[in-house]
């Protein structure tokens, strides 16, 4: 790059007056390449440079987002999780964090074999003594590389990996401290998740959340109470001397290892039991379920008591109802009596009315033209009326009412019927016969 001359004139822009660019030449440009298309786009859409640059920048951002990276690569550590590993004694490799050495400190027991192979390749490329010696380190400083190789050996061995995972305390998630303020589910879910890796059974129930059903919660705790762990502590064994010279010592070490292993296993089991116990005690759902149970009980008790009460109530109600009914019956009977009386009276009145209308019928018909015999007619009519029973009375009255002109015939018929029935001697009603 070149250097600019120092400031000689004024600060700011001075344009030479009258200065002009030499006239341009018009030539066709080749319509190829993205730069031409950009030029065409700018010209066609009348974009300014800055507008265009903004649009392009947005496009680029999208492109970068869409570009695909190996998803595994994102899970690997970008740099060494623990710098002290670089100076770790390779002979003491068992105490080193092998996952961190492989760049798998985020994945740990979750790492698949494929990922371990990939991660190993990556670490070897970076820490191979040939590579590090190029940047100044001596070829003997390959301790970390040896650890990487040991880690690879251990983690790709289907026997050794569970042993290492058992003792990978880095992957253990500590339960929340007692007495601190924490969200139960947030704090405990990772604890159980990390413990679940030791389960012999495959489908480990998850902790769930506040809405998990009571059944599932009970399943969860009963699973953890009966947890079957494959965790072993062989990895922490003291090295068994491989010489046959001192067999007794060898056996002694072996016995000691076994005892230590068993002890650790028992302690681990006890630890888990305690852990589950504590979680259960703290579980807000268990508390909630207990409370619900209590409420339910109270409710049931209330219900039971309420049953007896309802019985008494029902009885009282029935009694009251019976009483009311009796009263109502009495009242009804009384009113019926009155009604009957009224009906009787009405009937009487009707009868009277009928009798009167019949008695008056001859008069209304001008005594059928025999006005001179009016007394006889009236007298005999009176006799007929008195002799007629209730039904006949109504019948005759109706007939007369509908046909006043035929009153004589009607009365004659009635007199005839009466005499025929022997109720009246024919002599008495001679006029009508």
């Amino acid at each position, binding site marked *: *790059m*070149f*250097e*600019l*001359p*120092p*400031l*000689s*004139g*004024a*600060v*700011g*822009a*001075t*344009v*030479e007056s009258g*200065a*002009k*660019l*030499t*006239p*341009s*030449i*018009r*030539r*066709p*440009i*080749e*319509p*190829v*390449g*993205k*730069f*031409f*298309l950009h*030029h*065409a*786009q*700018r*010209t*066609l859409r009348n974009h300014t*440079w800055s507008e265009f640059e903004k649009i392009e920048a947005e496009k680029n951002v999208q492109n970068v987002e869409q570009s695909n990276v190996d998803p595994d690569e994102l899970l690997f550590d970008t740099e060494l999780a623990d710098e002290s590993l670089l100076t770790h004694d390779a002979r003491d490799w068992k105490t080193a964090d092998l996952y961190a050495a492989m760049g798998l400190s985020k994945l740990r027991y979750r790492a698949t074999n494929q990922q371990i192979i990939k991660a190993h390749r990556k670490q070897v490329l970076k820490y191979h003594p040939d590579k590090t010696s190029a940047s100044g380190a001596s070829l003997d400083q390959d301790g970390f590389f040896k650890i990487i190789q040991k880690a690879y050996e251990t983690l790709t061995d289907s026997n050794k990996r569970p042993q290492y995972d058992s003792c990978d305390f880095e992957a253990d998630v500590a339960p929340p401290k007692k007495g601190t303020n924490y969200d139960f589910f947030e704090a405990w879910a990772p604890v159980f998740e990390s413990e679940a890796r030791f389960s012999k059974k495959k489908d480990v129930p998850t902790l769930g959340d506040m809405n998990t059903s009571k059944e599932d919660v009970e399943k969860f705790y009963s699973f953890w109470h009966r947890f079957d762990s494959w965790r072993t502590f062989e990895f922490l064994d003291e090295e068994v001397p491989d010489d046959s010279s001192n067999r007794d010592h060898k056996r002694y070490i072996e016995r000691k290892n076994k005892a230590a292993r068993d002890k650790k296993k028992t302690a681990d089991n006890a630890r888990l039991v305690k852990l589950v116990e504590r979680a259960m005690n703290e579980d807000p759902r268990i508390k909630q379920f207990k409370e619900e149970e209590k409420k339910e009980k109270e409710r049931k008790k209330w219900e039971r008591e309420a049953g007896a009460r309802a019985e008494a109530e029902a009885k009282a109600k029935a009694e009251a109802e019976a009483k009311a009914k009796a009263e109502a019956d009495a009242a009804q009977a009384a009113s019926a009596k009155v009604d009957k009386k009224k009906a009787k009276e009405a009937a009487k009145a009707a009868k009277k009315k009928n009798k009167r209308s019949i008695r008056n019928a001859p008069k209304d018909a001008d005594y059928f033209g025999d006005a001179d015999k009016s007394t006889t007619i009236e007298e005999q009519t009176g006799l007929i009326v008195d002799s007629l029973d209730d039904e006949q009375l109504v019948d005759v009255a109706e007939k007369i009412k509908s046909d006043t002109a035929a009153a004589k015939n009607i009365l004659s018929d009635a007199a005839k019927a009466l005499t025929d029935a022997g109720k009246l001697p024919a002599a008495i009603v001679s006029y009508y016969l």
Partner: protein
Amino acid sequence: MSGPIIGIAFGNTSSSIAYVNPKNDVDVIANPDGERSIPSVLSYVGEDEYHGGQALQQLVRNPKNTIINFRDFIGLPFSECDASRCATGAPVIEIDGKAGFVVNRGDGVEEKLTVDEVVSRHLKNLKLAAEDYIGQTISKAVLTVPTNFTDVQKDALKKAAANVELEIVYFINEPSSALLAHVEEFPLDRDQNVVVADFGGVRSDAAVIAIRNGIFTLLATEHDSKLGGDNLDAALIDFFADDFEKKNKSNPKKNARSLAKLKANAQLTKKTLSNVTTATISIDSLADGFDYHSSINRMRYELVANKVISQFTAFIEKVIKKADLDTLDIDSVLLVGGTAFTPKLATNLEFIFPESVEIWSPLSKNASNNPNELAASGAATQAQLLSAYDADELAQSLEPIIINTPHLSKHIGLVDANGDFVPVLLAETSYPVKKSITLKKAVGDFTVAVYEGEHHIKESVLEPAPKEEKPAKTEDDEDDESDWSDEDDEPEVIREKHYQLGNKLMELGVKDVKGLELIFNVDKEGVLRVAARDLKTNNVVKGEL
């Protein structure tokens, strides 16, 4: 689902097809015979049609029904067609005023094919090969054409392609296409003048292209329809024929069949010699029942072909002269086409150009190993770029208002601390243009003086360093080898490019800057704006002409 737009480089001798695969790499497509450079040959044996390499083999046995070198005839009246280039294949005849061929389809049936029909069939075969390879139907293509193809010829090509359901969405000049493919793979860090020299089988094309901010401008083009790889073959054939005659007293050139055999094998030998230093040729029963077997090394080949190769270099010099430029104005030379494989071509060019010029040939590590695939790759790259635009926009983008842009006739630049001119926008930059340079190390107060500039070639003669007085020596030292080597040393002429300040345009003064960005902007009216921006404080000083 319709497939991607493919790029087709359609040559007289061979054609290539390419497309940009879903991984965004350019794939040059091989036909079912595995040829990535597919001979543009059609051959008919009875009912059967052969295409590509299979057809090329028919040239020995069945030359009358094998159609070669037909590309240039499309759209031309018969009188303008050069019938001699088809001498070894099916003869050219006149059909309706156009070029055509007559082939025998068995049982005495003769088929008359116009050149349009031949092109259609060739393109159809290419299309089928691409569909086989990609696994999708192909309906659109970008086609490369020589810079001197007329619109009539392009229309004829378009029609011929439409007959086989192939839409040519864009024509792209061969040199631009090749250069595009090159810069896609090897991006440039500065503006350059490039000579693109395309040496094909039967013709050569060269173009001087100015690359300014990624935009190409053709400064000059040159064509030679008599110069190509076939001339190299001819030189080799002469050499082998003489050798054969010496051994067997029989001239294979007198017999058309022998000549065809010799040509096919000489071509193979030529290709082998591009990769290794020794090659053999062996032909059973070349002429009069004599077998021929011989070997040739590269040195001998280069001597034999020296005359032709110097024609190639002369051709390149010619186009530079036509563009009114000096070899010093050229920054690089891009060799394209099958003949570019010849190593001697590149080494010869290194002699005529100054050291600063980069020769992009298969020998260079900054260039493609397959110069014969560049044109197709460029077309494919263009095809992929085009797929983001719709047809309307593409048609509009070819309007003269966009294509015909004004170009700066002089450099625009700055004066540096030594008072020398530093060009920023080179001459031949098309505008509107925007270019920024960042000077991170500029801290303090500065003057930014903007000038127009010119350059000229300065020749200076470098006197040979005066010979050291040799200390007296004993007699046996006298015929020291260094003695005679210095004797006839010619004075060395050094030619250099010098910039000269022209008109002063403006001056910007900036104070207390910590890092400076200079933005040069010429808008479409030709107004120059220069802005100096302090990288730290974002303070801007602007000047407008």
